């Protein structure tokens, strides 16, 4: 059997940014090969959590441990396998789709033959073939996000970190993005994505509810709702807010 993608364990991770405690003793377990959702309102600490996972920020205290099949992996070894897609515009408006893919090929040092085949497959999957020479600045919101996603998918990462990938995207394109992610997960990839759209939680295998830097609860979406006795995740946050 093929070993499942790496999982990540957080042990009491705390991070203070300026005067705000962005993460407050967060401990959780991202099981390998699943699609995880981090759900929470704006300012809950979702971006900070993802940046820590990507190694862009160091936690003030606590530890982040990566493991594959029970064996721990040091961050340096897992780093090439991590892809991070930030929430802010992360593409160059004056470069075309094809040029973006080439730039990411060079950054991740992919062999040319593998690249040629993969980039075509991804462009096809994202339905961006016709726009390969269009510059990122002239793409629609949904196409832009899809391009960003296929750029980070190009080197087939083991861990994919997506920060609100569906924000500002129309419902049809959102659906396409979700399909793209589902096609790529399925045991081969650990996807951790954040969203403030509560309805997206139900599409994840596991969800973690985050608010004010604290972990409220986590688990399978259906079971979690049942346990919390709420009809939807929105209700949970509305109740917590009171």
């Amino acid at each position: 059997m093929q070993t499942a993608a790496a999982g990540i364990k957080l042990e009491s991770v705390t991070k203070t940014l300026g005067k705000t405690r962005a993460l407050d003793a967060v401990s959780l377990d991202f099981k390998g090969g699943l699609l995880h959702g981090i759900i929470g309102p704006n300012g809950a600490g979702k971006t900070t959590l993802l940046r820590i996972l990507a190694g862009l920020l160091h936690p003030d205290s606590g530890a982040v441990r990566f493991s594959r099949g029970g064996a721990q992996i040091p961050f340096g070894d897992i780093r090439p396998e991590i892809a991070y897609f930030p929430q802010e515009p992360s593409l160059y408006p004056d470069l075309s789709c094809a040029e973006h893919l080439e730039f990411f090929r060079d950054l991740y040092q992919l062999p040319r033959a593998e690249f040629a085949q993969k980039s075509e497959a991804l462009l096809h999957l994202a339905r961006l073939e016709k726009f390969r020479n269009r510059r990122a600045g002239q793409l629609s919101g949904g196409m832009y996000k899809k391009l960003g996603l296929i750029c980070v998918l190009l080197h087939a990462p083991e861990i994919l970190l997506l920060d609100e990938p569906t924000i500002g995207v129309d419902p049809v394109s959102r659906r396409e993005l979700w399909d793209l992610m589902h096609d790529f997960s399925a045991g081969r990839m650990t996807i951790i994505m954040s969203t403030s759209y509560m309805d997206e939680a139900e599409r994840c295998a596991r969800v973690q509810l985050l608010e004010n830097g604290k972990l409220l609860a986590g688990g399978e979406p259906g079971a979690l709702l049942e346990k919390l006795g709420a009809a939807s995740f929105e209700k949970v946050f509305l109740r917590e807010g009171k």
Partner: protein
Amino acid sequence: MKLNPAIVGFIKKELTQALRDPRLATLIFLVPVIQLTIFGLAISSEVKNISLTVVSRPGDYLARRIEERAVASGWFSAVRIDSPAAQDYATLLREKRTEAVVAVAPEGLRRALERGNAKIQLLIDAANASRARQVEAYVKNVIARALADNSQAPPLPPVKLDLRVLYNPSLESAIFLVPGIMAMILCIITVIVTSMAIARERETGTFETLISAPVSTGEILAGKTVPYILLGLAEIPIIIAAAVTLFGVPLRGSLFQLAGAGFVFVSTTVMVGVLISTFAQNQQQAMMGGFIFLFPALLLSGVMFPVENIPAGWRLLAYLNPLMYFAKLLRNIMLKGGDWGVFWTNIGALCAIGAAIAAVSAARFKTRLN
């Protein structure tokens, strides 16, 4: 040697972006030529077009001789002789109708000379002190010549000076200034373009993408500096060609010296750009940071004012200024044919300063979010 594909890809991407952006491409290739033309023509240490008023009695031929001399010199533009009735020449100065007034004795200069009591009053508008000083020297010169013409037996000067001006025989200020201005323009463009290019990545989310990719800090730094060093080097032939064709500045030295000095200088200023970008979160801040560096660098470089005139304490800053060394190197190469002693001294100093700046920039260039 196998080139690192990440760095090569980075350089390709950076150059594509720089050349594709019409504003940036204009800034890199057209603006230097325009600036060189404007600065080369406008910045001149020669004082010309001085309006002079000579106040004398009508028919005072010595006063007229002074006027003729002034016109012949080419320094003076509007020369008028007013009658002594126009007493209030201070008003002429105050109203800016004239820049200098020469008033001779009312009874006539000739008679005053005979009496041995000839006084000439010289009034100069000294709102611009350095111009006034030169106007004074010119007027004195004109008067001295006019009077020398007049005396039947001029006393022979005991020593005759055989004056030869080397490297710039016609003493044109453009020949002296243009190499300095070239250095200045190269400095401005490379510092601004580099710091803006890094700040732009930080401002948009692209920096996050870069630093989360498996590339090292060194690779990112190389990817962000090498393209701008190449662009800076590409600019040197353009401004040299402009200087030679537009201003007739000679290029007497070796191209090897030019290439060596250009490479060291451009690398240094690109690293200054990196250093500035490490303090900036966005492009506006990078631009402001650029000016904080550039203004003192331009003033304390000897391009416009001689370094020797800077007070001793501040002169120390000039000796830390890469622009000062490059301006010296360019003048040495272009005007004097590139004396090797001068070359090695200045390139040595430039290398040392460049290495120090590069070390600080590299240490400050963080590939982590704060």
